[in-house]
């Protein structure tokens, strides 16, 4: 089945130690998103890639960066995780064609713990 896959599902890191979360998709969607979701809150968009074009949200801290080496993969890099970065990180994808935008498909998320 076509899907959005996130690895690992659970990640523990130390305060200040860089960490990378990965997302892959078999849907061949041209847009990929990274969200941060804290407990019982709505997902907060960090950034998205529209094809190769990177779009950062204005309030996303510089500590968060992303890479999309090809259509299928997208990475979230947290350069120096703080305790406040502990959260669920959701990857999502969507297909956007001229004048039409489909719904977003979400992965299962990676729960990040910062010690």
């Amino acid at each position, binding site marked *: 089945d076509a899907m959005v896959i996130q690895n690992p599902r659970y990640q523990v890191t130390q305060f200040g130690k860089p960490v990378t979360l990965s997302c892959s998709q078999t849907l061949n969607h041209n*847009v990929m*998103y990274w969200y941060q979701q804290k407990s*019982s*809150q*709505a*997902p907060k*968009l960090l950034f*998205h890639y*529209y094809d190769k074009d990177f*779009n950062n*949200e204005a309030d996303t801290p510089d500590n968060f960066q992303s890479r999309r080496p090809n259509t299928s993969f997208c990475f979230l890099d947290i350069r120096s995780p703080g305790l406040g970065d502990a959260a669920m990180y*959701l990857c999502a994808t*969507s297909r*956007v*064609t*001229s*004048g*039409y*935008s489909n*719904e*977003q*498909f*979400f*992965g*299962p*998320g990676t729960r990040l713990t910062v010690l």
Partner: protein
Amino acid sequence: AQTVTQSQPEMSVQEAETVTLSCTYDTSESNYYLFWYKQPPSRQMILVIRQEAYKQQNATENRFSVNFQKAAKSFSLKISDSQLGDTAMYFCAFKPNDSGAQKLVFGQGTRLTINP
């Protein structure tokens, strides 16, 4: 800026009952999409139902239906014959009909519990 408001942080009903989750939004756009997403405990978020603003007919997906009132900017979700598996966090979301604007605006969510 668009905003989405879900005024019910938590709801609880008995199995087989009908429940309605409310959502209001604010926008100056004339054409847009509205979504209800379901996020079960420890499971991934999935789309429940979507509505295009230009369509007057309310969307329906099996036991799930919406009441879309464009003038009132209201988009409620009705779950009929509720089941234990409907227990989840439900998010209402808005997206303008602009292929260059990919941001979903989420409401705060409603935690729905279906009791046996």
